[in-house]
């Protein structure tokens, strides 16, 4: 009881102190008047109301700032009314890894062996009690049966918790709890309201009222204040807020490296250094997250990401590491350009560089691929340069014809160092391109994602960044799907939508392997990405199989840089690794 009493006090001034409000009424009302308890309750509520008004005013004022806007509105005491007719009957919502068709698995925590039916609510088969609160109610501190002197507290995480569909899971039947008062529902005409239960019995409708302390209510505040500006709509969450902060920062500051990194990190839900300069103090792993503590901020990220520094070293060797604003504290994002990391392509690019056909002078049908290792450059019997490039045969011929045009052949030979006296050279084709043409106007963003859902989420949101990037700079993007093994079964001939919309696009939005050359006007991918499937297994001309309906996809990320692609498989190369998708 003492604990709850403290909850109703707050550090505000005399004007909202309930005891002062009460005593301010005068001695007649506080000592003589027979209804003085009623007055005491009234003044207590009024002081609570003043506090609630203050909270709401602060929420309103904070909503003007993307940095301070509350994710949810706070209601100090939120009344949650639970009707018996709706108690323990929650809507059936199919989420990934949630309900399955037919009988629910025996190891399901709440619904083992239950059979769900469309259009009917579901009831747990174990000793828990579910209630679907109003959509607006998102979180709470504790539930109490009364505001004043409560005799029953329901603690979040112990007595009550959330399930993945937003339902409250109680560990006891509230309608059987003698400490929680029940009220019969009476219609306006004075007759009792009844309902029919699943067994067909007519039951008197009742409700219980419990009070949520510090109820968190979703007023869609983040979207209305900032999300609609960027036309990005997501459920209210800290992640959504961070994402919008990143976009806002990118918009206001312009495309600085730090702002780009922050925006990308907002999409990936991983942190980047916020202060201009921070020094590592500590780092550890707990609760499914890795934590990084600097002298100015603390950061946490999914434990499946690695630290951006070498955590195999002694901790004392890493402590004191200097971070600059925009740098990631995990390995989810890598940004490279020639100013930051001269020659970055030698270490970060992976074994191939795929360039869109639109990056070339002349008519090309598909992308060209350049290997990022020493290859043989030579002059043929006619003295023409043979540039080691992979791709469609006609495109390779077009490329070599261009560089061997008499107007420029000598210039290219001189640049490469080829001559009749030195007709063969070992050079890195990617290095040749970067040193000769690309390095000053090309930036590289490498992303690691840890599951396919996040992959799709990232690709869907990355388009929001595009309008803020300089258009005269070429952005090479590499996405590594870092999932060890995922299996999606019983897909009923439907493709995993995120990948269908993304993996198959080239930088020019054509869909290699499915409908080559078919352009996609207005595609969000036409502007920014070079997402490509690159040559596998020495068959660069036609390495891909695609467009097959599938019932089962196995996404298997390997560390191999070469893999054999069989019929019924698609191969994706992400930062040197090969991902095989099996179609069956």
């Amino acid at each position, binding site marked *: 009881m003492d604990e709850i009493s403290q909850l109703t006090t707050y550090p505000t001034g005399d004007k909202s102190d309930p005891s002062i409000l009460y005593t301010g009424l005068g001695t007649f009302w506080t000592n003589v008047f027979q209804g003085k308890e009623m007055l005491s309750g009234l003044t207590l509520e009024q002081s609570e109301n003043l506090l609630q008004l203050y909270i709401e005013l602060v929420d309103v004022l904070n909503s003007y700032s993307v940095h301070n806007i509350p994710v949810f509105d706070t209601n100090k005491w939120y009344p949650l009314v639970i009707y018996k007719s709706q108690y323990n009957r929650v809507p059936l919502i199919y989420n990934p890894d949630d309900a399955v068709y037919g009988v629910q698995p025996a190891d399901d925590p709440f619904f083992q062996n239950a059979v769900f039916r469309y259009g009917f609510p579901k009831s747990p088969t174990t000793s828990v009690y579910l209630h679907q609160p109003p959509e607006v109610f998102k979180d709470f501190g504790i539930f109490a049966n009364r505001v004043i002197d409560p005799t029953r507290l329901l603690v979040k995480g112990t007595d009550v918790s959330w399930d993945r569909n937003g339902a409250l899971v109680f560990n006891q039947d509230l309608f059987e709890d003698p400490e929680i008062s029940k009220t019969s529902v009476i219609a306006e005409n004075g007759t009792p309201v009844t309902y029919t239960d699943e067994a067909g019995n007519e039951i008197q409708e009742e409700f219980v009222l419990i009070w949520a302390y510090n109820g968190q209510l979703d007023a869609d505040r983040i979207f209305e204040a900032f999300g609609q500006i960027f036309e990005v709509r997501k459920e209210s969450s800290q992640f959504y807020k961070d994402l919008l902060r990143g976009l806002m920062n990118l918009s206001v500051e312009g495309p600085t490296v730090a702002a780009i990194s922050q925006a990308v990190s907002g999409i990936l839900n991983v942190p980047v250094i916020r202060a201009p300069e921070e020094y590592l103090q500590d780092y550890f792993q707990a609760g499914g997250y890795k934590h990084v503590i600097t002298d100015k901020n603390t950061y946490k990220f999914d434990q499946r990401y690695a630290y951006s520094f070498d955590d195999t070293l002694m901790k004392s060797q890493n402590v004191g590491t200097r971070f600059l604003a925009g740098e990631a504290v995990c390995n989810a994002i890598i940004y490279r350009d020639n100013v930051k990391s001269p020659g970055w392509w030698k270490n970060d690019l992976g074994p191939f560089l795929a360039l869109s056909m639109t990056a070339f*002078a002349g008519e090309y049908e598909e992308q060209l691929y350049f290997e990022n290792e020493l290859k043989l450059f030579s002059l043929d019997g006619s003295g023409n340069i043979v540039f080691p490039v992979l791709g469609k045969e006609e495109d390779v011929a077009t490329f070599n014809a261009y560089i061997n045009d008499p107007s420029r052949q000598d210039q290219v030979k001189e640049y490469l160092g080829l001559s009749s006296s030195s007709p063969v050279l070992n050079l890195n084709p990617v290095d040749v391109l970067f040193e000769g043409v690309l390095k000053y106007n090309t930036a590289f963003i490498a992303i690691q994602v840890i599951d396919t859902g996040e992959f799709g989420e990232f690709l869907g949101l990355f388009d929001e960044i595009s309008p803020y990037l300089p258009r005269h700079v070429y952005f090479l993007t590499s996405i590594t799907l870092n999932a060890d093994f995922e299996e999606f079964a019983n897909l009923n001939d439907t493709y995993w939508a995120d990948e269908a919309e993304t993996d198959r696009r080239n930088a020019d939005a054509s869909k290699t392997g499915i409908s080559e050359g078919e352009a996609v*006007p207005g595609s969000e991918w036409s502007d920014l990405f070079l997402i490509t499937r690159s040559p596998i297994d020495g068959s660069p001309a036609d390495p891909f199989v695609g467009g097959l309906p599938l019932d089962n996809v196995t996404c298997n990320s390997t560390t191999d840089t070469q893999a054999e692609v069989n019929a019924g498989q698609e191969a994706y190369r992400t930062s040197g690794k090969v991902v095989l998708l099996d179609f069956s």
Partner: protein
Amino acid sequence: MATAEEIKLELEEFISGLAPDVDLAPGSAVSELVVKLSASVQAQMRDEIAPLDAVGSVQEALDSEEDTQTETIDQIASNYNTYRGVGVKSAGKIRMSFDSDAPRTIPEGTIFNQPTLNLNFITTERFVASTTPGETGILLFESSPGVWSTIFSVEAELVGSGYQLADQTVLVPTTLFSGLVTTTAYGNFTSGVADETDKELIGRFRTGLSNKGLLSPQSILAKLRDEEGLVVDVSVVGANDAESKRANNTALGISSFGVADVYVRSTNGIETKTFTKTASFSGTSWTMSIDRDDAPGFYRIASIQRADQNTSGSLVVSSVVYSPSVSDLDRYNILPAPQDVRYSRYQSAVVEFSDTNSDGEEIGTEGATGEFEVTVSYQPGVDTIQDIFMIDTSRVACADYLVKAAIPCLVSVENLAIRPVFPDFDTTELKQAIFNYINGLTFGDTLYASNIIDICHNFDIKYVDLPLTLRGLISPPGGEETIELVSSDSLAIPNRPDLLVTPNTTTFFSELFVPDSEGVTAGNESISISLI
């Protein structure tokens, strides 16, 4: 925020918590005199906070079914350095022709009505026309045998883009002028703009808060639109776009990048400009040069007329050859291909045309010169915007940004048959609404017939008889054959990066009247509506 009912519940909870015996049942004295009253007062206090809530105000404006213009949104917009755009009236010149050379006075406030569209245009000053105008009058000249004409300025009665008249559009004065032969628009009118609504203003928050520079598409839009007021919309194509090939001509044939093309829509509608040029006669035709500064990046030649005759219609243009012009410029963009020049401020043209008499004989002798009035359609400001990308105080280091007028897709809506509720339905406002919808589309948008039908149902219309026909005409900048789009459902800009025609470069325009092959626009309306 809590509702009055929730506050009442809370009051009851607190009172019953400390005074369990108090009767709080509905109708009791405490409930009626204390609880309800107090709940009402507290709810009122919370309502006082509501107007401060920017979130609520924006939500309300966005949810509104009607166009609103509220002060709260103005104040919120100021946080984003964004201010409501006030409307602009269309303006232009009209030509009145009379059957004699008697001096004429056109009083201030004279109203000219376009009968088909029912639009009014008004003189904002008094004009006195005579054959000897002096310094204060305007010229009354013989435009054809027995017909004397004068040209003066008018502006639209109201703000809005629907008032943009096309050249040669017929007008009728609402006051009597003796001896009047015809009254027509002289050149296209400027495009007006309606007062900005809350929804439109909120839509600009994004660019309002954006960095205003030339480094990204968003900041370019913010600078050119919100800061300089030079454009309606901008599309930037660059390193990762198929349309950008200006930097591909390196020794290795791989783009060096570092370049971008900025396509601008500076006004909602296409405008015209008239200027005088000297042409010379050689062989069998006249030839004149249109310099890069005459009408930078112009779309097409609408008409050529003898400067001293002011006849209607146009002389016959036989060829227009476009070429780059960079002489005397101390800095300019790289322009490797002809299609890079077209619609840019570097565009100049050599025009060949003929001037024949009534017998079809060419008027002109070898080496003769003559003054001609040329009217072209264009997007104003291409040169000004290009300068912003070139001067050291604003340009991005090492970046080559070429500014071009948006490639136009001229739209006409045909076979739109409606059944009005009342038989005397006036289609004027409906045409303007459709016109505004088309000219309000931005880069990347698709023109949907369903949206036009939606617009129809904002009026007193029972039903729309389908199908209607949408027609679009695109002139690729490389001089290739025009691309015609026809559909009953929607028009989408085709993806032809080889022709530089893509949704990133091309956008929809509608003029009130469809120009014919000679650029004369007095004929067919671009939005034709029939009542059934």
